[in-house]
């Protein structure tokens, strides 16, 4: 068993592959891979229907914030093995994934807790923004409540 660990981030204008994210964290020293997928929900806002989201990011700072976040996760859950986070940018249609993250760990509890923490902290700290686009062409910048 090697001591090598991986933190892999990707900001992508293309469709996200859950298989790719899972393969990135796969390790024969781990019995658990915990995954979270955030998808665009078909919402009604004030009678307007959401048809998709438009994402933008301060890309270089996303990299530095996620690097800090992974260091933080490894302090809290030292047994965490690999972390992979893919986030979409640009246009994301309703039903598509905007973020996929996976964490491998020897046992499941630490990985499941780490994924919950990871998505909460990403929403709180990663410089990424989305606006909802409605069926009447109007748009509205969102704000994470948490």
């Amino acid at each position, binding site marked *: 068993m090697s001591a090598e660990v991986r933190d892999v981030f990707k900001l992508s204008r293309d469709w996200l592959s859950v298989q790719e994210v899972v393969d990135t964290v796969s390790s024969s020293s781990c019995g658990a891979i915990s995954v979270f997928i955030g998808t665009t929900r078909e919402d009604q806002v004030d009678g307007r229907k959401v048809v998709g989201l438009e994402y*933008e990011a301060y890309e270089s*700072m996303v990299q530095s914030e996620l690097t800090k976040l992974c260091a933080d996760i490894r302090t809290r859950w030292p047994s965490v093995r690999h972390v992979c986070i893919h*986030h979409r940018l640009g246009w994301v249609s309703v039903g598509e994934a905007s973020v996929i993250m996976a964490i491998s760990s020897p046992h499941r509890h630490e990985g499941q807790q780490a994924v919950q923490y990871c*998505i909460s902290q990403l929403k709180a*700290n*990663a*410089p990424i*923004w989305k606006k909802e686009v409605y069926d009447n062409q109007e748009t509205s*910048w969102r*704000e994470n409540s948490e």
Partner: protein
Amino acid sequence: MTVTVLFFAKSAELAGLKEEELVAVPTPISSKDLWGLLLRKHPRLLVLEGQVVLAVRQQYVAICDQVLTLADGDEVAVVPPLSGG
């Protein structure tokens, strides 16, 4: 000092641009005064007051009395409320 200012999301829409050079910025300067300089150039940013923070060399800085030391070429970003994920 000359710093590069980056605008994101609603701040880019309000300022009408995504990036500009800001020249003759005094240093040290409080983050509140730096925000004041940006407001003078882009008065429409005022609607973000109370919600926005800055990022200076990729570190978040609240708009307050905190004093920043800037160097030529530093990157300053206007950061409206985050909505990643």
